[in-house]
């Protein structure tokens, strides 16, 4: 199996790696870099548990080859907290009970961050549409919607 040299930035840290052609980005993150916050729920692009940001855009990292991420900036859940301070989206999910088993949570947080980066004051239907590629089996979504609304408010006040 051919191997490739790739260079990418993960949560602000430059990484030079040699990977197999077929290695998925999610496995690069979880196994090579031991960033296990990004989860795998279906490996068929349906559930969104593996959502990370690639150059700011939410992508399902189970459907992207590591080599496709060559040169990209990747953001994962582990990079949200800065200098010991939780990201407003993290705070809001905790406060509004936007998570239960925690498995879909990292993907939801990243999708929520991407939405709020492009839309400072999303409506409920806009939030629901934005997270419609992320499945949650525990919360019934209502509190996730409320958490993203609350995070939007916190971010606007910053």
């Amino acid at each position, binding site marked *: 199996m051919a191997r490739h040299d790739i260079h990418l930035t993960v949560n602000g840290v430059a990484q030079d790696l040699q990977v197999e052609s077929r290695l998925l980005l999610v496995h690069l993150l979880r196994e090579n870099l031991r960033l*296990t916050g990004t989860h795998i729920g279906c490996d068929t692009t349906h559930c969104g548990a593996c959502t990370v940001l690639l150059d700011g855009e939410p992508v399902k990292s189970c459907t992207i080859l590591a080599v496709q991420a060559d040169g990209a900036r990747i953001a994962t859940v582990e990079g949200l907290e800065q200098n010991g301070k939780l990201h407003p989206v993290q705070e809001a999910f905790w406060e509004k009970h936007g998570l239960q088993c925690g498995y879909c949570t990292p993907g939801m947080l990243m999708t929520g961050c991407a939405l709020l980066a492009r839309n400072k004051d999303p409506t409920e239907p806009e939030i629901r549409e934005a997270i419609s590629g992320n*499945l949650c089996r525990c*919360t019934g979504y209502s509190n996730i919607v409320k958490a993203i609304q609350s995070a939007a408010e916190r971010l606007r006040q910053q």
Partner: protein
Amino acid sequence: MSTPRTSPEVCGMGHSMKRKEDPRFIRGKGNYVDDIQLPGMLHMDIVRSPYAHAKIKSINAERALKIPGVLAVITGETLAKYNLHWMPTLMSDTQMVLPTEKVMYQAQEVAAVIATDRYVAADGVEAVEVEYDPLPVVVDPFKALDPSAPILRTDKKDKKDNRIFHWQAGDREATDKAFAEADVVVAQDMYLPRIHVASIETCGCVADFDRVNGKLTVYMTTQAPHAVRTVFALVAGHVGLSEEKIRIISPDIGGGFGGKVPVYPGYVIAVAASVVIGKPVKWVEDRMENLQADSFARDYHIHAELAATKDGTMKALRIKTLADHGYADAAANPSKFPAGLFSICTGSYDLRNAFAEVDGVYTNKAPGGIAYRCSFRVTEAVHCIERITDVLAQQLKMDPAELRMKNFIPPEKFPYKSALGWEYDSGNYPAALRKAMDIAGYEALRKEQAEKRARGELMGIGISSFTEIVGAGPSKQFDILGLKMFDSCEIRVHPTGKAMARFGTKSQGQGHETTYAQIVAEELGIPAAHVQVEEGDTDTAPYGLGTYASRSTPTAGAAGAMAARKIREKAKKIAAHLLECSPDDLVWEPGKFTVKGAPSRSKTIQEIALAAYTNHPQGMEAGLEAVSYYDPPNLTFPFGSYIAVVDIDRGTGAVKVRRFVAVDDCGNIINPMIVDGQIHGGLAMGLAPALLEEISYDENGNITGGSFMDYLLPTAMETPSWETAKTVTPSPHHPFGAKGVGESATVGAPPAIANAVVDALSHVGVRHVDIPVTPEKVWRLLKEKGLAE
């Protein structure tokens, strides 16, 4: 609970405390099975059958073993050498770990590949060559009982048909008589399709056998770690696994819902591989394996009949059901209940005559019969009674709310003995339905519906007034493989007044680390923030039967209160010693003992804890800890009334749940925020089978709903903003008056939605529609009735 008894600092019952488990989850620092990496760890992947029924002619591993990194290919023959190729199910049936002769369902495990890397293991799976000789397939459970059907379980020497069990409850004669004398009888066939819990984390394990110490550690996605340890010891004792050297660790679990109660073949193969190879072996199934091979839920073909007087007084209920269990009865019911707690089917109604029977049948499908976020077949029972109640209302041209109000068990009749033998602990059904109707604006909705109907628009209102039976259970009736269904708690109060509490259950998202801490805080006055809760490690936690069937609060939560009360008794004696008074002179308020009539003379629980280690009375044992194994005197019976409002698109047949009002009563509440979260999640998992989910098979036994492409989970787009409210009717027998709550909404929601859809179409003569109510199904109905646009 109205006002909490404790301060926000102590955070006992009734406080919406932010969850203690969340700081790790929101940082991506949870520790799930697939996150575990051990030195030298190998990976396992599984070869699965493309056929639903076939003889295995040969398995050739030669090509696979030539792949660099593939270390072993394990087959049924390999396991047969250790007599590990079959295993018991939780229902005392048997199930293959790996086959030696034939496969019984599509996606069955055929062989396992062990490799140094998960990609290489998958390469190995592709390279294993298996030759099959297809056999006749039995898909239809009704045909399975036909004398001409092939007998599937040829491994059972005396088996002459495909029937697994016959179960019945109630007085058949009295019920038949009540039917013969009734003014009105309605009957309805209904099918509750095969569905799958599809927790977002699939199942898996890391099995780690230490050859030097003979110790097996298994990190495992299990809801019942202690029971699994005992089962492993009993099944694999002959190969040297001894219970004191088996440690099951259930780390963070990404949703369970009943699907992580059974022991699947993959776990057993990984353990066998680790024991034989002497290295850790990781197995994590993918989503399609999860949907296609893990235990399914429901698959009940029900024929229900309800008898009543002309004025709508229910007189008798009669139900006949065929349960398709696949090729093995791999349900996870208490041993004495092959049809689970289906006998709760008389529901919320004062029905004096009832008879129910269920026949279990083998077919060429994945084994199972587990719960889908419900207490042992309660959803099936509730769907049946709530649907047939609406059929009766339609027959009598009565409003379904009025019919329910007329037949509810009156609040003054509790505790109430049901016709099928249960003693309902407490309830106030009219209050819950009245509250739901007020919140929904029921009368206004009916008016709106009439106006819309006149304009040709299709809107429906559906009610479900369910009663659940949860918290199994009393040891005189409830066991799993002989293990009684008590649960446990051990509390240790440390010298500085902080505490460690360990439980026999295992949270999969329910928030035990928070709610259990609040129970201890309520009972001892130690702030919940200072109570560390642990579960899921069999080396440290007391023995318990695990978390499923909404049993954690009714059993382990109760054990937490009882252990805390034992500690409080000892603390009282220490306080009396410190205050130089008689224990009888002390009064307790959360957090301290005070001398009666002398409010300035008191000792806090923290002062007492320190004294327990530094200044305990002579003649008393030092320390401050207690264990409780709580055997509940009865189950708990949560209830509620739900109202769904749906709109139907006449062009596409799509059903939109516009509003959903849920009034729940789970007795006294530990954490209102968490209870609401449980209800929300349950509602989404009730909407799911009502509108979307079904695992179906074609005539050859091929699965036609085995991926997330076909098996649709609800997203944020299909789910409404839930409207929730509570009534509070405490359980009289539970130590703090609570009932289970995690599954109420999954149980109560499907009939509310199904009833709403039928209600929207009742004016054109539609009386029933099976769930899932898919756009195609509705569109065909609309077309038939001339309503399709």
